[in-house]
């Protein structure tokens, strides 16, 4: 199947399954806090495992499907035997490892790697053992009866029922299946139903017949439903139950046509009543579903494309409105309509930009698991507190933020939070707290990871850095801030022993690298004995920035406003040169180097006298410099485009972080603020 239906089906499977596992994780971690599985949680876990099993089987990923099937069995047993006693944390561990297995298998599917069958089998045995323990042997036998691969999710009692039914005569049925609205690919789902039915039915015919070859059957199935005619030894009720549990089936209509052995139907009127019931139940369920599903997922590449197109629209608009053919004409009506158009396009641009913003919540949620696993393993107690998870940032940024965040949390538990005894001795609450906070400030988002652990031991850091030869200047001259920053150097780690989670000295530098990659910066605060905080400052979006247009010669450039402190006409008496001819300016008691952009880039311009042009004070990474340009053009919001790959390959091109299209279709180059303050002045 996977080969036949290619990427879209596979993508959907991966997406659905990963959503399911995420949801599962949330439920399980909530449950663990409560110490017992609620009835609701058990049903939900059962349902998720069932869905994963079904869709994995449909995609022929039997390893995933079998693991999910076993986990489903386990929860099936718990659901059916509410009185049974079990070790909640043991089961949580098992389910989490099942989830990890499924997730890692999905990763492998994405990367086209071989499936890990052995790991799956070991896991299955573990689940079986657990089921055996809590059931005292009963549950295992039911597994054997129903077989592992079958789609059927019958009751435990089915073991007996099936054998009884097999002796009894077969019935003929006509079944019409309607899928849930918007589930997509109805033909494929129909096919998988038929395939699964082969386990308990024969003489299967279905309508439309060419579901596999003909994609247009989707519409027919949507309209008229998918009709299946079959004979089965199962009772009416059993069949209804099977389909109730099949994923994506919205409603079904089952009619018992005749007994296969030509006996008259006994249940002529009954089916109708049952149909009603079933439909009713399902309708309720659907309502629930719909209220949850007010969101749809769209691939980022489509959004990127949309944004590009809106960009083109803006350019096209100005080309029409400012068309030379119109010059000199009095067109009041045209002007009015053109304004309206301009307004609509502007609004559209804002909207498209906001589409790319997603809340940090799901990224923050991932930290729960890390905290759980690590505290358990390291024998520490810690709680996570999340503030401001509704803060929104650009999708691209989220991707770069996830790893650093997890690493910082890991670091907090491993290095920051002390053991329980130590905490009590220090007069702190025995349970450590890690706070993750996000908030907006200007065009930046701040994400802070804070713990109330032991803080950074400056001496230890210095000692370690000395040993690793990472110190660049004498210890005595280093400020606290500089010492803290040492931990972000590659190869630095203060933990003496390498643990599973940290201590290899990779990680903190990766945090820094990731944050820098999205144009952000990092600061560390720490108080010995009280805890530490890592503050990440991240631009709201990498795709759109507030820029200041400047002119150098006849060329237009854009400086990110976030890096600009001020711009001013210099007073000639503040300007002086040192003995090497370097220009500097004295500004409110501070001395700044002056960098002339035209000299730096070899651009010809008539404005070479400092007092004729304009000086711009820029600040980045706590470094400041004055930049000299001809003049300012004005502030504008720009959509950042990367420079073409070929240009980026040319090593002599420097100081540019990207480019942007201006309203008239011309290109403005965006100057890299980091380069402005760091490069050698020519």
């Amino acid at each position, binding site marked *: 199947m996977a080969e036949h239906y290619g990427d879209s089906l596979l993508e959907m499977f991966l997406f659905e399954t990963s959503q399911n596992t995420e949801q599962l994780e949330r439920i399980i971690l909530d449950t663990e806090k409560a110490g017992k599985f609620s009835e609701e949680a058990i049903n939900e876990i059962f349902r998720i495992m069932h869905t994963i099993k079904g869709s994995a089987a449909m995609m022929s990923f039997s390893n995933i499907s079998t693991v999910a099937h076993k986990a489903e069995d386990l929860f099936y047993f718990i659901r059916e035997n509410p009185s049974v006693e079990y070790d909640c944390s043991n089961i949580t561990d098992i389910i989490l490892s099942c989830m990890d297995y499924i997730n890692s298998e999905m990763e492998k599917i994405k990367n086209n790697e071989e499936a890990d069958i052995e790991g799956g089998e070991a896991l299955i045995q573990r689940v079986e053992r657990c089921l055996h323990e809590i059931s005292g042997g009963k549950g295992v036998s039911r597994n054997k009866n129903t077989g592992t691969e079958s789609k059927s999710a019958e009751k435990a009692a089915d073991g007996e029922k099936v054998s009884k039914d097999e002796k009894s005569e077969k019935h003929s049925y006509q079944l019409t299946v309607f899928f849930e609205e918007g589930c997509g690919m109805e033909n494929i789902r129909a096919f998988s139903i038929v395939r699964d039915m082969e386990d308990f039915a024969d003489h299967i015919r279905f309508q439309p017949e060419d579901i596999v070859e003909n994609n247009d059957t989707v519409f027919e199935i949507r309209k008229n439903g998918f009709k299946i005619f079959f004979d089965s030894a199962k009772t009416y009720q059993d069949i209804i139950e099977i389909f109730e549990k099949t994923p994506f089936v919205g409603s079904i209509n089952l009619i018992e046509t005749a007994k296969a052995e030509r006996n008259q139907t006994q249940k002529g009127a009954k089916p109708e009543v049952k149909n009603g019931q079933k439909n009713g139940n399902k309708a309720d369920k659907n309502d629930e579903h719909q209220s949850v599903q007010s969101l749809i997922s769209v691939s980022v590449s489509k959004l990127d494309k949309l944004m*590009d*197109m809106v*960009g*083109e629209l803006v*350019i096209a608009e100005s080309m029409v409105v400012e068309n030379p053919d119109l010059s000199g004409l009095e067109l009041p009506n045209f002007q009015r309509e053109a304004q309206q158009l301009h307004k609509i396009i502007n609004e559209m641009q804002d909207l498209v930009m906001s589409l790319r913003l997603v809340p940090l919540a799901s990224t923050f949620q991932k930290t729960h698991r890390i905290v759980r696993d690590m505290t358990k393993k390291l024998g520490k107690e810690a709680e996570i507190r999340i503030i401001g998870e509704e803060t929104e940032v650009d999708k691209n940024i989220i991707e770069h933020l996830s790893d650093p965040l997890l690493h910082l949390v890991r670091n907090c538990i491993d290095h920051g939070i002390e053991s329980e005894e130590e905490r009590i001795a220090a007069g702190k609450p025995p349970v450590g707290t890690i706070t993750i906070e996000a908030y907006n400030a200007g065009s930046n988002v701040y994400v802070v990871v804070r713990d109330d652990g032991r803080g950074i031991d400056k001496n230890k850091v210095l000692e370690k850095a000395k040993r690793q030869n990472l110190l660049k200047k004498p210890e005595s001259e280093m400020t606290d801030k500089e010492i803290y920053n040492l931990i972000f150097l590659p190869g630095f780690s203060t933990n003496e022993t390498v643990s599973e989670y940290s201590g290899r000295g990779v990680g903190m530098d990766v945090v820094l690298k990731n944050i820098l990659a999205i144009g952000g910066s990092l600061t560390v605060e720490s108080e010995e004995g009280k805890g530490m905080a890592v503050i990440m400052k991240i631009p709201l979006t990498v795709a759109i920035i507030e820029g200041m247009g400047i002119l150098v010669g006849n*060329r237009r450039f854009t400086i990110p406003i976030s890096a600009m402190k001020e711009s001013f006409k210099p007073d000639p008496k503040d300007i002086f040169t040192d003995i090497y001819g370097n220009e500097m300016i004295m500004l409110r008691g501070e001395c700044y180097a002056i960098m002339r952009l035209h000299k*730096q*880039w*070899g*651009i010809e311009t008539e404005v070479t006298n400092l007092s004729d042009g304009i000086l711009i004070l820029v600040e980045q990474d706590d470094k400041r410099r004055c930049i000299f340009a001809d003049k300012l053009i004005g502030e504008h919001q720009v959509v950042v*485009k990367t*420079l*073409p*790959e*070929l*240009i980026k*390959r*040319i*090593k*002599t*091109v*420097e*100081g*540019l972080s990207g*480019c942007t*299209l201006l309203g008239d*279709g*011309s*290109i*403005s*180059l965006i100057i890299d603020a980091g380069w402005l303050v760091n490069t050698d002045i020519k």
Partner: protein
Amino acid sequence: MSDVSKTFSGAEASEDSLSSKFLTFKIDNECYAIEISFVIEIINMLPITPVPGLPAYVKGIVNLRGRIIPVMDLRIRFNKSEIAYNERTCIVVASIDGMDIGFIVDSVAEVLTIPESDIVNPPAIKKDSNRFVKGIAKVKDEIKLILDNQSLIDFRDIDDIASAIQNEN
């Protein structure tokens, strides 16, 4: 002029027959050819935004309907004197190794099928002298120099310059 400004992306010819099809264009008196499978489209001259730090033959970047692509002046790349662009000047947009680039040429001539048997290797003159030309073909008494796309976008020379400058410092 507009008649040359058409796209070739929709060419109905199959992959195999494309390999021997070439787009020919003129620079000075010479006629050059590039494999048409690399060519995306031919456009008229667009306003060029210069980028600081580029070698002289890469003129800058242009905005092609929202796509930013670099443009290279083949006259300068081939060490010929620079001339002002006129209404016959074209940009041949090509995709090489998945990267788009525009080549500025004096004028576009035609699309030709050149059988492989008509193409000969260029004679060795001195090391690295003819690295842009990978073959020479004679079609209807006219010589076509077949260009090697890879070496056109190989910026070894400027890397050398860059490292030379660094060594000086």
